[in-house]
């Protein structure tokens, strides 16, 4: 630990803890200090709650708007009166929401499957096998993560046009079976933390690399694989750019994101229905988050980003 930068170098050596005799430690805190502590505590809590309002209020107002009647949503009111729950069913009649949900689930599910199947062996080779050029290959994988999608998107579009894949799910699913830099990175980081002795023991017992991967590494790396699957599923569930590009005008294939983004332009509906659709779209994500909160927060902390 070097000296801290700045004008006043504060202590650069660790000061040994002063020995506190039990009698001194147990001495009652003077009332002035206690009052100050109490006030600081109250102030802290007040700020925490104020910030919470900033985060929660938008969600509350959106849900309230989703429950308003048509007339109400055009007016100034904030509180729905009466609660118009039927908005949530009306949305289904207005837009083929079930159909779009199935489309989105198909795309997100299959491409998540593809990503996991293709990235696990690659991450294994990049972390648990010894070969020349391994580090260079890993750097190349990371470099591809830095490349903006925009750089490859025009030729990809042209390739997919030539293959007659535009207007089908294929451009959104098939590429994910060929690795994804972020997922490889996340899995590789996790595989690196598994003790080498475990695979060595399996090798001594005559296990092949494939057996070590499937019987030793995958069971141990379940949290990381779950995180990768979650991130990929959500990425696809939320993505607008790629579906907008590749599904084109074929409305039968639309995902929920396209449907929502075109909602106003196509139906010119009132806020209540638009918010009802948004809430329905958000709901599975929120539920998923509460089910797997730890996986999310640990994944973000491990890699520094949400993918």
């Amino acid at each position, binding site marked *: 630990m070097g000296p*801290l930068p*700045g004008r*006043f170098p*504060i*202590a650069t050596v660790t*000061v040994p803890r002063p020995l506190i005799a039990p009698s001194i430690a147990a001495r009652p805190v003077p009332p002035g200090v206690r009052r100050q502590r109490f006030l600081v505590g109250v102030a802290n809590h007040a*700020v*925490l709650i104020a*910030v919470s309002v900033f*985060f*929660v209020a*938008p*969600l509350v107002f*959106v849900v309230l708007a989703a429950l308003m009647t048509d007339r109400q*949503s055009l007016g100034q009111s*904030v509180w729905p009166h009466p609660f118009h729950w039927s908005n949530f069913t009306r949305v289904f009649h207005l837009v083929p929401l079930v159909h779009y949900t199935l489309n989105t689930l198909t795309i997100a599910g299959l491409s998540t499957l593809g990503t996991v199947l*293709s*990235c696990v*062996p*690659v991450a294994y*080779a990049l972390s648990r*096998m010894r*070969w020349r050029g391994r580090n260079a*290959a890993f750097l*190349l*994988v990371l470099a591809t993560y*830095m*490349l*903006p999608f925009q*750089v*490859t*998107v025009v*030729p*990809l579009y*042209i390739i997919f*046009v030539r293959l007659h894949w535009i207007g089908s799910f294929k451009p959104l699913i098939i*590429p994910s079976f*060929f*690795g994804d830099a972020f997922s490889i990175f996340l899995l590789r980081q996790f595989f690196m933390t598994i003790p080498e002795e475990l695979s060595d023991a399996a090798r001594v017992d*005559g296990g092949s690399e494939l057996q070590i991967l499937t019987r030793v590494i995958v069971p141990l790396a379940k949290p990381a694989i779950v995180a990768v699957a979650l991130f990929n599923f959500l990425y696809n*569930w*939320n993505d*607008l*750019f790629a579906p*907008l*590009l590749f599904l084109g005008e074929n409305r039968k294939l639309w995902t929920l*994101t396209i449907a929502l*983004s075109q*909602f106003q332009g196509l139906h010119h509906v009132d*806020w209540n229905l*638009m918010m009802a659709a*948004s809430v329905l*779209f958000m709901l599975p994500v929120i539920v998923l*988050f509460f089910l797997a909160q730890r996986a*999310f*927060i640990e994944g*973000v902390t491990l890699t*520094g*980003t*949400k993918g």
Partner: protein
Amino acid sequence: MAVPASVQMAAGPGVGLPRVDPETRRRMRRRVKRRRYAMVLLFMSPWIVGFLVFLLYPMLSSLYFSFTKYDLLKSPQWAGLFNYRFMFTKDPQFWQAMKNTLWIIAVGVPTRIVFAIFTAALLARRRRSIGVYRTVYFLPSMAPAVAATLGFVYLLNPATGPVNRFLGLLHLPKPLWFFDPMWSKPGLVLLGLWGVGDAMIIFLAGLLNVPAQLYEAADVEGARGWQKFRFITLPMISPVIFFSLVIGVIDGFQYFTQAYVAAAAISGPGQINFVGSPQGSTMFYSVYLFSQGFQEFHMGYASAMAWVLFAVTMICTVVLIRLSRRWVHYQGGFR
């Protein structure tokens, strides 16, 4: 593994290891190595194919397209530097998109980082009941961008939105937000602050990693709260700030979904050319690239724009890395 027949066991007593003649041993080793490399190749193959087909080839052909005129109907026609020259000298929309993008980066990224540090510091100060607050602060960042944007267009809508009603109660000026070219980008910045959770989590991890002895030592020296923050906390989390800056700049140049959805939501029905509404104020770099490439089918021009995007991103990243040596403090003196 099968032992080759040519391996001769040592005959004499006292020798514990099989004696193999050097030639056989070399051949064995080569074979094992070849097998291992075959396995590596097999495991790496998904990525290798993906890299060649979905990355390297598209990258090279996009570079080629950037020097051509290409509308998908006719084959690409060589145009030299025309696209680039047109972009820099004759296309006001390009410069508008560039300016909008730099605006959202210059304003949006720092405010988001400051807010992330602020919220993370709030959480890090409390030892108990941090869980509930952490969930509440993090949750909005999980909201899908499309839904969150639609929500904010409603919240900020000038006539009936709750935000302007609230501002009206306080007798404050009521901006037209997404309907006003002056206020559409601030609206998007607000949306970004609402979803600050993922950045906050990284800062929270960074703050909790600052060794407590440092603060204790500072207490002994009589440092005040602000001094402790300035001379201990900030240097200790400077790597996280640096990381968020780089990611923020990279993401900023690819800012698309929120701008696209907000523009679509405020445009009336039947509008096709809504991107950038109102009045081009949400025409960001990636939005303009999308509209040039996939609405106008100017594939050559879109490719040129993509390469300029790549170059600008790279330059910004390198500049940030260069500058970081002055202020980013890595533990253990590693720079």
